[in-house]
């Protein structure tokens, strides 16, 4: 009964319905040199589909409705730390937050959400390739400005609604609002089973970053790689959300 009432409210505040955007195939120069690639070599990215917006609070609330094992307080600490959905005071998001990106979600929960939608989390290379495309009629400098301004602005008490920054493909908010999970977030910080076991993420600290960067002009992007390197799958954080990708165009599950 309570839930029905809640959903009524949600429908009344004009929710955003995101489409998936077709990302054409293209070449992308990895930001950091991988162990088995050479500096300055481009990687071919196959065409794929990417969510127009990051997953919103409202969408995530629907996911929980269908998958109660992901309710706040129900999830094993192995899959989400104590901060999981930490900004929800009650059972769901605040009414003025429904179109804001969902944050305080773990990799596991984001992955489960995308699977429920019949999608998947984007690969780091896919996410970065799409994110490197500047807005229509602008150059890469414009992308960096958006990132740097976000770094420098005051932290908002509440995240704004999605749909603020749009790139040339028509994908919104990859910069300037939140950090986003990718499927292989730990690929820059492989340890344990890597042959370079001793050299933990050294390319991300101190002077190391200048040895392996393919693109010095994109200085601001280092931070994303630094952020990913600090993550574990069960971590959640105030400014960490996600969006899904797919190999085919998905229609969103009807409610």
């Amino acid at each position, binding site marked *: 009964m309570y839930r029905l009432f809640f959903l009524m409210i949600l429908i009344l505040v004009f929710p955003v319905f995101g489409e998936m955007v077709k990302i054409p195939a293209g070449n992308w120069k990895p930001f950091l040199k991988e162990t088995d690639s050479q500096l300055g070599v481009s990687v071919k990215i196959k065409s794929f589909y990417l969510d127009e917006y990051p997953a919103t609070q409202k969408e995530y609330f629907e996911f929980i409705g269908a998958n109660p094992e992901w309710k706040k307080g129900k999830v094993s600490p192995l899959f989400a730390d104590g901060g999981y959905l930490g900004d929800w005071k009650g059972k769901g998001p605040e009414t003025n937050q429904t179109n804001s990106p969902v944050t305080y979600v773990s990799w596991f929960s984001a992955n489960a959400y995308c699977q429920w939608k019949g999608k998947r989390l984007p690969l780091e290379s896919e996410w970065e390739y799409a994110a490197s495309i500047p807005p229509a009629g602008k150059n890469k400098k414009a992308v960096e400005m958006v990132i740097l301004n976000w770094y420098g602005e*005051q932290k908002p008490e509440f995240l704004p609604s999605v749909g603020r920054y749009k790139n040339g493909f028509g994908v919104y908010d990859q910069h300037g609002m939140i950090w986003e999970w990718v499927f292989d977030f730990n690929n820059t910080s492989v340890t344990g089973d890597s042959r370079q076991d001793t050299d933990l993420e050294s390319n991300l600290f101190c002077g190391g970053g200048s040895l392996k960067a393919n693109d010095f002009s994109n200085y*601001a992007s280092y931070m994303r790689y630094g952020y990913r390197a600090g993550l574990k799958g069960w971590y959640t954080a105030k400014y960490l959300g996600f969006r899904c990708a797919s190999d085919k165009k998905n229609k969103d599950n009807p409610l």
Partner: protein
Amino acid sequence: MYMKLPKSKTLKIYLLLMVITSLFTVCSGQKTEEAKLTYAPEVPPHIDRTSEAKVIVNIETVEVVGRLADGVEYTFWTFGGSVPGPMIRVREGDDVEFHLKNHPSSKMPHNIDLHAVTGQGGGAAASLTIPGHASKFSFKALNPGLYIYHCATSPVGMHIANGMYGLIFVQPKDDLPKVDKEYYVVQSEFYTKGKNGEPGLQPFSMEKAITEIPDYVVFNGSVGSLVEDRAITAKVGETVRLFVGNGGPNLVSSFHVIGEIFDNVYTEGGVLPNQKNVQTTLIPAGGSAIVDFKVEVPGTLILVDHSIFRTFNKGSLGMLKVEGEPNATIYSGKQDDTVYLPEGPAIQRMVTEVKPKASAKTPKEILANGERVYKSVCAACHMKEGQGVVGVFPPLAKSDYLNADKGRAIQILKKGLSGPITVNGQKYNNVMPHLELSNEEIASVLSYVYNQWGNKGIMVSEAEVR
């Protein structure tokens, strides 16, 4: 979430834990203590223990909007909510257990590279922490000295440019000499979109940072953080030690204190006082220096980066206010201010007429002329009120030596004087030079002196001088 236990049970468990931890401490033989952290300009207290200990350091990284200059705000990324971050003091040989906590409200991942650490990245990789998490790592403080710590998460330059640095002092076993006052000062630059002084919240400028042209060069994180009522202080006779760091990110500091000479400089933050009597010491970006000096006279000493346009146009200025009794033998302060006329031998007083002196006739004119001569020629040593400087320049006020013999006074003015004399019971052995004064000027100035400060009130005529 913890379980609610009956009160008595909780108490028992608590007691048991107490016993266990105390036993553990006794058995391990090493003291455990929490480091006392201080905010600039305060320095943590001297460590008096003579054995090694385990020291726990807790620092939180937090992003805050704060004042960079009057009317100018900036989003600082900080250790401990301040720029510079808190100062850490440990002792050589200590085992340091470092806890870095990144506040949940932070946007950025942060970490710490302490230059005092022997080990990969100075702790950088071990301490990478995303918002809402905490990391722990440990190191042994092998090398004594004064070290910068800073955030080293990519892009490093940006984390430093936004304020993430501070100092850790590893106190040597072979202690530095005791001083009366210790202070913590860190120089750094800020790169803002707007020009220096442009009001409002200023975003970071990547272009300026890369070209290394900052609009602000400051001590302790903002313009004016060390001036007026925020100035550091000392009393005459005290020895002062400054722990000075340079956070950078780019500039090298020519650190200088206007009005003092560093008695000892521990160059680059090492523990050898390897240079004495230094005017300006160079502090590299990501480096430090320890300087010691004794303050001998009262006044305001000015801390600057002697790349001096930074001081006057970008903010690198601090103050050390010294209180106490003046000591004119070391420094007199300003003694006179006159108009300089290159064509005339005698110097005109600003307030007197500027035309060449007319021959004085009336006693009043004679005395006025005498005053002019006194202030321009005599006051530099004998002081404005004739009080002189004890032991150096004899007084003319209530002077027994002066009042005893008018003729002798005339001769001294004509020929000068050197050698030991006794004035008002005080011995003097100095030189008074022969002064280029006309007979009329000598007569006037002596008349003036004899009619001032409780002297016997006689006049001296030009004829007597001849």
